[in-house]
């Protein structure tokens, strides 16, 4: 009786497993269905979003998902041309320059002339006062803005004093706000004074934290740092889209802003629906079932989908200006020695990492600046740290750095997918090529950030994503010993300083390249691995879903252009 039982159980088990496997492996095939050239009646695109934004308040938004929404709902003085990465006019009618008088002779005062026709969603004109309020709020210590402090407190005259006034009383803060050199000359003219001449200030004024804000709206809903004003129904938009719905944790719906004032950027779509789905597989399932129009391809699925012809019309890929690397702790043995750093860097097979572990998503690099940073990117950068296990082994066995003396090394990383597989791969590489024992150290993201920024690590798996398209954004953070890990080289600092002050563009390229040469070729301050790629599946009936290398979220520079075709 019991043996019959066991056989029966086995039979059912096999049956169930077979059903499961067949169901999963059955071809799902993309594409199919006719798509005409006419616009569909229902102009609504459903896009995957990988998590809830922390805030869409421009002063506070920091997550990539937050930036995407903020960018499309609020307008800044300038914006980025996604192809060149340069600043182009937005609410301001021109980009300030020496030629047009927008920048003063001493390079310290910027004057922005606003467009006559720029209005808020409720019809009120966008005024210079709105930008003054925005920048004051950005640096107000009561708001505690991450990006405000990082990018703007030092460059804007008076900003540092305002940001330092923690716990000061309201009168003092108000005083400091007014003392800051940001003022509205009149309703249509904004004047900003900075602390030192800069080649990148216009780029900074194109970033989302500087978007115009409505003081009356914010104050209506709470204190200076409140977020209630960002809820749907309260928020007053200035960009191509308005916030129609925000179902926390579930979805965000943007609708075309009927009062949007820029003809070129007026959206074709009626609405953009962001579906918040943390689980990649669920997102892909939703796409396959037709519940989503655009989704990111999970790295582990890429080979199958890329090889599948039925998906070829739907696959879109673009390299991002995001470099993944691992950093060293220059104050701890053995990484205080350049030979050790070089050896570890040379023994990682980047090509296999990208082709096998990441299934082809990404581009291996040996430079810190990404290939998209033309003309500053130097294709010859990092020749000496390319994959070369024999040379690496030699370095390690050299009398100067005895392998046996290597203390156990921990490789710290934030324990989110897919970091683990990459770290484990590299650990295997070091075991195989160097015979060194490296211990993966997965940490919760906050614990990792804390360990990293307090210099409590041996090796750290890091990445850097560009905020604005300029080598300053990439290289300045290595200067002055500010980078966690303790890298410090006065020669490098000087090279950066010179490059920042150089006004001739041709010379500047040379100087920035020299700085990077010191960083990578000479010092091996960090070991770049690869540049990310956004790989997405977008339904054929979605026209003009344009992905660029600067996207915070795929296609977010061009949602105004996207349209739905009849299908």
């Amino acid at each position: 009786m019991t043996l019959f039982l066991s056989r029966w159980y086995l039979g059912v088990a096999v049956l169930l497993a077979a059903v499961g496997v067949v169901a999963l492996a059955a071809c799902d095939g993309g594409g199919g269905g006719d798509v005409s050239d006419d616009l569909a009646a229902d102009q609504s695109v459903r896009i995957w979003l990988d998590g809830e934004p922390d805030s869409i308040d421009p002063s506070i938004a920091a997550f990539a998902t937050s930036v995407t929404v903020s960018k499309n709902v609020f307008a800044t003085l300038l914006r980025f041309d996604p192809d060149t990465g340069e600043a182009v006019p937005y609410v301001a009618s021109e980009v300030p320059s020496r030629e047009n008088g927008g920048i003063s002779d001493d390079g310290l005062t910027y004057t922005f002339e606003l467009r006559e026709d720029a209005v808020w969603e409720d019809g009120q004109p966008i005024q210079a006062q709105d930008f003054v309020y925005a920048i004051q709020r950005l640096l107000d210590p009561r708001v505690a803005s991450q990006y405000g402090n990082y990018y703007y407190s030092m460059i804007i005259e008076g900003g540092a004093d305002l940001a330092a006034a923690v716990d000061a009383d309201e009168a003092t803060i108000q005083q400091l706000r007014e003392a800051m050199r940001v003022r509205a000359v009149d309703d249509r003219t904004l004047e900003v004074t900075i602390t030192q001449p800069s080649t990148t200030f216009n780029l900074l004024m194109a970033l989302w934290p500087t978007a115009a804000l409505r003081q009356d709206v914010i104050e209506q809903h709470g204190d200076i740092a409140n977020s209630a004003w960002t809820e749907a129904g309260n928020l007053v938009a200035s960009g191509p889209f308005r916030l129609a719905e925000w179902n926390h944790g579930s979805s965000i719906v943007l609708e075309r802003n009927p009062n949007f004032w820029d003809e070129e950027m007026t959206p074709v779509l009626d609405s953009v629906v962001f579906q918040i789905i943390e689980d990649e597989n669920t997102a892909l399932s939703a796409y396959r079932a037709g519940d989503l129009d655009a989704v990111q391809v999970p790295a582990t699925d890429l080979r199958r989908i890329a090889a599948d012809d039925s998906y070829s019309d739907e696959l879109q890929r673009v390299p991002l200006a995001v470099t993944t690397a691992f950093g060293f702790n220059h104050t701890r043995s053995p990484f205080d020695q350049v030979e050790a750093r070089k050896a570890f860097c040379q023994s990682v097979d980047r090509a296999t990492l990208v082709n096998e572990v990441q299934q082809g998503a990404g581009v291996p690099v040996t430079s810190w600046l990404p290939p998209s940073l033309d003309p500053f990117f130097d294709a010859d950068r990092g020749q000496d740290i390319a994959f070369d296990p024999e040379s690496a082994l030699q370095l390690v066995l050299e009398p100067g750095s005895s392998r046996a003396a290597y203390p156990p090394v921990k490789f710290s990383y934030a324990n989110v997918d897919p970091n683990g597989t990459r770290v484990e791969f590299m650990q295997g590489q070091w075991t195989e090529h160097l015979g060194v024992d490296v211990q993966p150290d997965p940490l919760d993201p906050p614990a990792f950030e804390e360990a990293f920024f307090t210099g409590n690590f041996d090796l750290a798996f890091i990445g850097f994503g560009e905020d604005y398209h300029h080598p300053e954004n990439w290289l300045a953070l290595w200067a002055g010993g500010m980078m966690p890990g303790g890298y410090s080289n006065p020669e490098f600092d000087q090279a950066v300083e010179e490059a920042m002050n150089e006004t001739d563009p041709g010379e500047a390229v040379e100087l920035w390249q020299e700085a990077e040469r010191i960083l990578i070729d000479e010092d091996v301050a960090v070991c770049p691995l690869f540049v990310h790629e956004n790989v997405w599946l977008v339904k054929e009936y979605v026209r003009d879903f344009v992905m660029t290398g600067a996207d915070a979220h795929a296609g977010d520079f061009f949602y105004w252009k996207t349209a739905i075709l009849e299908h």
Partner: protein
Amino acid sequence: MTGYVLRRLLWLAPVLFFVTLITFVLMHLVPGGPWDTNNRPMSPQLREQLESKYGLDDPVWQQFLTYSWNALQGDLGVSFQYQDRSVTEIIREGMEVSAVLGLMALAFALLVGVTLGVVAAVKQNSLIDYASVFLSTFAASTPSFVLGILLIVVFAVQLGWLPVFGWEKVWWLFPNWKQAILPTVTLGALPAAYVARITRASVLEVLQQDYVRTARAKGLTERAVIVRHALRNALVPIISVVGFFLAFIIGLKNAVVPILTVSGPIAASLVTGSFIVETVFAIPGLGKQFVAAVFQRDYGMIMGTTIFYAVVIAMANLVVDMMYVAVNPRIRY
């Protein structure tokens, strides 16, 4: 009984206090803080500003007292991660979803579990018995996210009968029924398995005790007894609804004490399991929020949700213990 209940409620206060204290302490001991989620170097300036804004520049013991005092007045503070949204509101929004999902899963577990258990017990040693024992053990041995993706692929992607994800309220707190099916089944599978096994065991016991004795006394064979009894009649394929409910109630009545015993693991699996189901089916529930808060070191959310859960669990325990005592007065606590 009233005295017992009152005493238990009084104990709630110190329990809550210790829960708050221990969570607070542990939270501050864990490496990484709420501001360590940006990926730009944190200037000391910014840290000062943030700590001032959220009151973290006071000494820890003072923070605890301030927090406790506020909590007693019903103010659970704000989330550190999601720009100042009130914790109470986030919990309320999350609970509207998670509570409904949990209750639906419980209902599913009881309905399916008891039915399966009764059928298995009555038709003991038949194919149905083996199938249900196997199915329930299998359901209890498969991680819920595996089960979830399996259901999604079969029912949503391949067959297209049901949506893949989501949870929209259509009437009061209740969701679109199509969206609710897969998550409910996934969450309720494990408890259903437990309930089925328990019901089967206890109904078997009852069957054998009463009816075997009676039947033997009457001189009938076991099989005849079972065949004749109302339970069997109630489960004939062309059944009357009343008969079905009768069987169900009888099964439930017999199994209720053992079910109560394992209600702990069931309740726990509903609370813990809800995180996995909410992630896989993209449901904006509290389980998902809670785990995210812990990983993001969102002190405000962690404290508020822990206290909330502690109250809910303590109340649920009390109800279960009360039922236990009511059903079995010999066991005194």
